[in-house]
């Protein structure tokens, strides 16, 4: 189990990570989620032993790692752009860690790993001839070949285009779960984190603002900024929050975060409002509605509803698409 205890990392006196404490239990996938520049990559590099902490402790099963150099930590790091060795073939890239350790049966293991990432028969190719997605698969196989006690993934999918990212995310999830590899992942993409992680750690401006099981974090964001970063469209507090919470049949809380699809057009709905904007998408109609007592909110409707600006409508709230925000703003 990896533990960070009050970790601080600075670049040239400028603090990049401030007082970070977290744990990665064996066999779990933990995602550190945060906007770019929040210090999450620095945190990962510190865990890998590539950046010296300015204070705090990084330990594995209670053994302090401060004096353990990168290559003795047994943590494989996979970079955002793979960082394949361009002068080595795919097979030699994947087998690199095995050669470093002079492990027996390397060739068979390499074939097995290439099969696991869906790249059978790619062994003799050079990295330059691969597509972006293939390169990331090779990088993943190379990291897994090291048989790491902890796998560190730095934005593993964000260099890829949308369709590929989705496919590779589900493959990655399956591979990580099947191999039972303990993984620390950093990303700015909530969907990537949601798809892969058992636990979420949210970071902002160098600090950890929230952590917990993925579903819990999603259901109860620590504050408005976290809720917005997690993909909630709006955060309400005060009287408007009370109106929406009442309509959703939820207990009173100081503030509530709404996904874009939290309000739906519903003839039997408890809320009333006037449509301000209406935009058609293939799946649904996206509306902006002035709701009585709650102000301007987003809503969705079936494409068949033909709601147009100026129409008076009634709306219902889907409680599953709202989240109670823990700390009031």
């Amino acid at each position, binding site marked *: 189990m990896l533990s960070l205890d009050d970790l601080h990392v600075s670049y040239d006196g400028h603090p990049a990570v401030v007082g970070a404490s977290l744990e990665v239990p064996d066999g779990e996938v933990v995602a550190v989620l945060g906007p770019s520049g929040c210090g999450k990559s620095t945190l990962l590099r510190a865990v890998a032993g590539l950046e010296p902490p300015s204070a705090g402790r990084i330990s594995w099963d209670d053994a302090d790692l401060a004096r353990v150099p990168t*290559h003795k930590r047994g943590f494989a790091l996979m*970079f955002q752009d793979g960082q394949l060795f361009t002068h080595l073939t795919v097979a030699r890239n994947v087998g690199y860690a095995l050669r470093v350790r002079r492990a027996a049966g390397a060739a068979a293991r390499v074939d097995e790993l290439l099969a696991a990432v869906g790249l059978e028969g790619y062994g003799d190719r050079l990295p330059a001839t691969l597509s972006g997605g293939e390169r990331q698969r090779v990088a993943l196989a190379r990291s897994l070949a090291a048989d790491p006690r902890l796998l560190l993934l730095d934005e593993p999918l964000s260099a890829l285009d949308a369709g590929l990212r989705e496919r590779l995310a589900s493959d990655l999830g399956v591979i990580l779960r099947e191999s039972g590899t303990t993984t620390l992942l950093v990303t700015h993409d909530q969907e990537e984190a949601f798809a892969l992680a058992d636990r979420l750690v949210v970071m902002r401006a160098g600090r950890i603002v929230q952590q917990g099981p993925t579903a819990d974090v999603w259901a109860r964001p620590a504050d408005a900024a976290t809720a917005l970063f997690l993909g909630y469209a709006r955060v309400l507090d005060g009287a408007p929050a009370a109106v929406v919470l009442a309509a959703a049949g939820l207990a009173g809380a100081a503030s509530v975060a709404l996904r874009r699809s939290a309000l739906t057009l519903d003839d039997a709905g408890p809320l009333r409002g006037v449509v301000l904007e209406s935009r058609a998408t293939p799946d649904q109609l996206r509306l902006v509605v002035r709701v009585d007592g709650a102000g301007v909110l987003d809503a969705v409707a079936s494409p068949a509803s033909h709601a147009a600006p100026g129409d008076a409508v009634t709306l219902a709230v889907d409680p599953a698409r709202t989240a109670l925000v823990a700390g009031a703003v």
Partner: protein
Amino acid sequence: MKRLVALAGLAALPVVVLGGFFVLPVAGMVARGFWPDGAFDPGAVAEVLGRPRVHRVLWFTVWTSTVATVAAVLLGVPAAYVLYRLKFVGRSVVRGLLLVPFVLPTVVVGVAFRQLLREGGPLGGLGLDGTPAGIVAALVFFNVAVVIRTVGAAWEGLDRRPGEAAAALGASPATVFRTVTLPALRPSIVGAASVVFLFCATAFGVVLTLGGSRYASVETEIYLLTTNLLDLPAAAALSVVQLVVVVGLLAISARARRTPDAAVARTTAPPLRVRRSDVPQVVLTAVLLAVVATPVAALVVGSLRDAGADGGWTLDHYRDLVATPDGPFSVSAADALLTSLRTAVDATWMSLLLGGLVAVTVTRRSRGRAERRLRGVLDGFFMLPLGVSAVTLGFGFLITLDRPPLDLRDSPLLVPVAQALVALPLVVRTLVPVLAGLDDRQRQAAASLGAGPLRAFATVDLPAVWRPLLAAAGFAFAVSLGEFGATSFLARDAEPTLPVVIYRLIGRPGLDDYGTALAASVVLAATTAVVMLAVERLRVPAVGAF
């Protein structure tokens, strides 16, 4: 078609100049070897190559160059790491100081090592004076900067992350170096080594001053055969041999450069603080700095010592610099320095003009196979002076430019032109990486906004290139100041450059003349060093890298 015409227009001047002042003289040399009496007779060349002395000279050239190259690489690579990957106070000064030996006039290097190693000198006890070991040491001193600059520039641009990825996969620092760093540096190391070998094999001033007639390399043998023995066919034959070897080596170094290397993904990795594991490299660099400083220190101290028995401190040698000695064609060292400076100014503008045109020509993006091939040929053609020995060039000037259509025997331009050709490859090598590094789409963007080719050049190329251009000017100036190989053939007796005067002075028996030679060497070295340190302040990575 239009593009080819434009290409031809740009390349015209350099091609004509190189044709007249390089191909013609060198061809003249070759002709002198194979057509000794007007009739084709390869037998003369074969006869020369069969002489035992020539075998000795060839073998000596090969083994000293090999040993010196290996030593320069072994010393230069760790220093490149320290100077380009680590962060410490005084880094740029150390970089500048280590570049100075490369542009120190060869004659000065020779004199400095003699002063260091001669009987009664600071290291006289080692008994290295006049031995091959002394020559090899001087060659290493001279060329280690080439390795540092070339490998350092590549190392600085090396992405740190592949190494980090390897470390995260369990590779120890030594394994990371062997399996990731070294393969990435290999092109630059091979390139540097081949250039250093080339410079060692064509070294002239150093070998001539330290080896005399006992230890001759091909280069000095050509000189001795020409000037002392007047055996022109033999000199020509040796020049031909050298030409063949040099063209081969140039081809190897060009290949090494062409291998895709760190230049593809050029980032400048921020240097790291010195860690405990860096201590061996840092110590080695400090030793190297001391080794480089020792001959220079010996030179300076020697120039301030009375040549007589008491050996007290004196400035007499410096006073002698302005005095005109007796004898025919005697000029004071101060006059010679003025001649050197004047010549260097001329050589600098010539090499900049030619080098600028060449760099623009070879870096423009080619469209189509024919154009690309033509540019490739031109690129190689313009690099030829890098390897063709200065002595061959000077000798070729001497025998071909003395009659119509080009009768330049007494032209004051002869020496600057020769020096400009010697400096040309260095100018081109400084400018090409900068121009090649510019994204062609920038020029296309300028053009799409209505800028003509000249305007686009001024908008995109010029801002990037002015510093390298200035640096190249300084580099050319320094090289020209110290140029000895070609100048020794071409300088008119009444108007010698300072290196020529120094060589004349050390050739004379008197102790005072020797002291004056030391003082003149110090002045020449100081002038070049100042120019080079100014160049270093411009922070152009490609200066002195190949």
